[in-house]
């Protein structure tokens, strides 16, 4: 006999799990069980999930977040998703092309664009805590640039005097031209210190230190 409906208790139990999942507080087993819930009632679960998030958005962001979803957005998406090939999980990480670097990368692959490679400034031996690059080149014509998100790379501190402060990276812009960006960890720190001191301005927008992670090298000053 096929069970086509769940009773009210079962439904509430699933809702309770959805609530915990929404907060990232559902453990692995319960998550697996939730995902394995029968097809029947899936719509109801979806509606509940959406409503829970709507509540959170409205509490945090007010009225203007209360625009609700299109009723068939997901079903239309599912039709298209059905035509997609299955996902291939990430391959192990390729090491940057550089001098010895004790790299710990979180098992995910870096930007796989062939034109993106690390170049070390001559004479530098290793990294000291190089922060992940998180920037988007959104300007310019053409297709969107692949998002070069590198995992946070940490290396043991070698010696302060050998610490390279400047790393050159070559990036391909949508127009095809290469642009060299200078990533200077030291400059980042000074920028952060400058931003913190910026409370001397009347325009108190909170521009947090460390938000400014990308730099465009404009011109050598001579």
């Amino acid at each position, binding site marked *: 006999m096929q069970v086509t409906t769940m009773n009210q208790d079962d439904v509430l139990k699933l*809702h309770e799990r959805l609530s915990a999942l929404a907060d*990232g507080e559902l453990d692995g087993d319960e998550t697996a069980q939730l995902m394995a819930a029968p097809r029947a009632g899936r719509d109801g679960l979806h509606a509940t999930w959406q409503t829970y998030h709507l509540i959170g958005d*409205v509490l945090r962001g007010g009225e203007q977040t209360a*625009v609700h979803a299109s009723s068939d957005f*997901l079903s239309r998406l599912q039709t298209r998703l059905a035509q997609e090939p299955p996902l291939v999980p990430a391959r192990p990480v390729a090491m940057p092309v550089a001098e010895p670097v004790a790299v710990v990368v979180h098992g995910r692959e870096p930007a796989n664009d062939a034109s993106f490679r690390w170049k070390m400034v001559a004479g530098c031996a290793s990294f000291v805590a190089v922060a992940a690059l998180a920037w988007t080149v959104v300007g310019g014509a053409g297709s969107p640039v692949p998002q070069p*998100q590198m995992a946070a790379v940490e290396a043991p501190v070698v010696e302060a005097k050998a610490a390279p402060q400047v790393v050159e990276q070559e990036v391909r812009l949508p127009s095809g031209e290469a642009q060299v960006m200078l990533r200077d960890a030291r400059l980042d720190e000074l920028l952060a210190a400058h931003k913190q001191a910026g409370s001397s301005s009347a325009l108190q927008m909170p521009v947090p230190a460390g938000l400014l992670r990308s730099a465009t090298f404009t011109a050598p000053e001579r």
Partner: protein
Amino acid sequence: MSGATPPAGDSDLVLVERAVAGDQRAFELLVLKYERRIQRLIARMVRDVDLVEDIAQETFIRAYRALPKFRGDAQFYTWLYRIAVNTAKKTLMDFKRDPTVAEAALRSGDDDDETYRGETEPISHETPDTVLAAKQISSVVNMAMEALPEDLRQAVTLREIEGLSYEEIAEAMDCPIGTVRSRIFRAREAISAKVKPLLENQSGKRW
């Protein structure tokens, strides 16, 4: 900060990992979670209402394909946000429309400002109906909050607004974590009960 992130923290990563491992249901939950926000974002950039939804669809398809490359070092929504912005810009350029993101129209007409470039009109998809609908929903949520018993309201406030983890809320409210989870769930159920009827009435309407 152990778990001290606002909503949309670890739960996204769990869903992403499951989705990459082949669990399409997990991806669907991500879609449902961010559909409204992404549509709102795109609607600020694109005039054509139908195009907004098309671009939103395209955004999630691209996100799905790129999911294996998503690293946990940035928030999933930020990653998704970028995909949405890029998709919108590309689509607009494909249609040979003005790709600039809409800003407020600031043609002041003052001579002194002639050197300042004018910018395009802001895009609003709001109609009196949709504004009213949004007001109603928001008002029902707030009233439902007010009507909650104090412990339920406090629990959901600490979670949703202050972004505390269950552990932190348990500490703040001096109760077991299980109780926190239950209170937040009951608060959400109580509010949902009042909000859901409004949403069902408007199914089909987008904004």
